[in-house]
């Protein structure tokens, strides 16, 4: 029984500490998925969450400025001005009418400030290639290790 207890304590300590780390990581990186239409209905704290929105890039709306790229994202008949401020260059697939996922937070002035942009060409091509990376068909500014 004593041995069992030792193992129990060891396992519990291990699992709890890893769980705690997971919880920290969750808090740091959780991102809400919303549609452009939902964004205007969000209240209070919900507006300050990190979130991810999807839509279509409005033709002719991409303006490349110093330090940021502005464009308009369209979805469900609504439009959302977006400023991309990330350091990575935008993916090759990011063009007029491409489908894009933007990740960031809404600014008080109504613009959406995006840190990451993923884009996929309006489906001339089948998306998922072979066995592989989603990046394969969609470019992204995501960066990690």
């Amino acid at each position, binding site marked *: 029984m004593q041995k069992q207890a030792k193992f129990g304590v060891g396992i519990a300590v*291990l699992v709890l500490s890893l769980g705690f*780390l997971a919880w920290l*990581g*969750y808090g*740091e990186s*959780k991102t809400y998925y919303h549609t452009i239409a939902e964004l205007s209905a969000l209240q209070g704290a919900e507006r300050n969450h990190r979130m991810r929105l*999807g839509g279509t890039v409005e033709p002719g709306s991409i303006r490349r400025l110093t330090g940021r790229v502005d464009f308009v994202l369209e979805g469900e008949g609504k439009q959302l001005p977006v400023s991309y401020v990330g350091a990575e260059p935008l993916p*090759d697939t990011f063009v007029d009418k491409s489908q894009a996922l933007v990740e960031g937070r809404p600014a008080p002035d109504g613009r959406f400030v995006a840190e990451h942009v993923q884009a996929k060409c309006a489906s001339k*091509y089948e998306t998922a290639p072979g066995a592989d990376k989603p990046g394969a068909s969609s470019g992204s500014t995501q960066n990690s290790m």
Partner: protein
Amino acid sequence: MDVFGSFALLLALVCAVYAFVGGIAAIYTRHPLLVKSTRQAGIATCALIFTATFSLEYLFFSDNFSAAYVVSHSNRSLPTFYKVAALWSGQEGSLLFWSFLLSVYVISVLLVYRNKNGELMPYVGVVLAGVQIFFLTLNNFVASPFKSLGMQNPAGGFDFFTRIDGNGLNPLLQYPEMVIHPPNLYSGYTGFTIPFAFALAALLARYPGEKWIHLTRKWTMIAWCFQTVGILLGAHWAYAVLGWGGYWAWDPVENASLLPWLTGTAFLHSVMMQEKRGMMKVWNVWLVFTTFLLCILGTFLTRSGVVSSVHAFAQSSIGSWFVGFMIVIVVVCFTAYVKNRDYLKSENQLDSVVSRESSFLFNNLILLVSCIAVLSGTLFPVFSEWISGSRISVGTPFFNKVNIPIGLLLMFLTGIGPLLAWRKTSTDSLKRNFGWPLLVALISGAALFAAGMRQFYSLVCFMLCIFVTATISMEFYRGARVIKSRGNMNLFSAAYELAWRNTRRYGGYIVHMGMVLIFIGLAGAAFNRDVQKDMQPGSTMQIGPYTLLLQSSDSKPEKNYSAERMIVEVIKNNKPMMLLYPERRFFTTNEQSGTMVAIYSTLLEDLYVVYAGQSPETNAPVIHAYLNPLVKWIWLGGVIVVMGTIVALMPNRRNVFVLSAVQQPAGATPAAPALQTSATYREGHD
């Protein structure tokens, strides 16, 4: 050829159904002819799947642009090399390719064991046929790769037509790695079907003893090796092609390939507990079941895009088929377990906290925690939507926070586990085995700290890597010294001889050494640097010790793309070293562009240069340079892992002049525990 192929697929399904139904009948009636005919039906299924696969390849090679799949994934100017790879570049072809690789395994199993294990094989055949039926259903009715181009005409008939040329292959797939990465990864995914089938069959048949574990060990290792190589090649492809300077982004498809690897690794270790001590039987069976389920889940995530899709949910109906199949697997496994669980009773209990058993236990526990963390992180958007209604995703910090400590713990166990004795380890042997390695690790840790390394995790990782290297070297040294003293050879050939005498144990050490190299490479990521600059020709940028001078640019038209190439001179210590050519390719057929990263790779660091396009304000080329330390070690580690696995797969070389009395014959099941302690280098470590 398209009719031929689709007919072969249909016939394959019929044969698979016969193998399944007839197999069940054979189990009940035990009629030898029925047993034989179902086995032959299984072989016929495989042969027909091969035929279908080759006829799809034929459509690619004959530029048959009346087949929809060929039109979407190939064109006339596509190089031959990539016409092979075009087979698995889309949904339908990938699923056919899955069936194809599975058939390679199935036919090998059916042929290798055709006159052996008569009690077990009918069950195995039924399970394998069941899996094949699922994929053949998809191949035939849900995602057929043999659809012709055509449209409904007003009269109600169907008009077929042929295109002059196809749309071409996605440029991101036109890289050598993309030709070998999917086959490797898929060979891993499909390969785990074999241990799954044997485990389920043994449980259903109440097959006595640990025999199924001995039977499947090699198959599991082959699948594991393919999975490892597949993951690493995928990482290398992401690194060399996607051009964001990294190799792992924790995205759903990458995670999907990691999940079965984690449980498969756990399984490879925990079966030793069952072999040696008759413990963890339930655990092992469920580990195999889970691994197989995760392989199916991985295929499902890759194919349906349920998580990564730009759209909230998958557009194809394929997802519900996979979910249905996974539910069937869970129900079958669970029923078999509940019915026959008394057969899985453990024969022994854990004796001590400091023992080989407990190191395996903790190894399994943390691999499983890692698997759960990665799985829940990957599926978080799906689950959070079910539970709370809002779709929430988690990113890199979540995965890194959990998995970095887990990786370090695993590295620690890699060092101590193989040297702990079964049952209980004495303090004396702890001192003898770990004294020196610990000292060496601490001294080198202090040296690294003194040299200015302050990244906590990386520092710990390097120390652990040195610790593990020291323990493994000591193991080789001790064994080799014994052989050297008895035969006339130097230490190196003695170590070589040693590895071939107990391939399983020393092959395992070599695999561990490969993992050490991979971990060294991963730890280097903490020191990555990058610089991005708009550069006019003639201007320079500085990164680390290197100065990059943009000399000029040129462009060259190729067979199926045109390229814009930057000529960047690398200067170090005021001496010109070489030219790098980062380029962007523009594929005319599908109006897509791709990046070619220029990498100067050394053991110390990679200089990674990307031409990121033209700056919108200045029209100058944007050059993004990264300095990534130690990345090459990851790929080297992968090579060592493969070599170690191959060594471990080999039969032991007979050894005639030492220990002939206790030497087990090649290929035999491991000797009884009593024999294992009778020789210095056999101390029950494998």
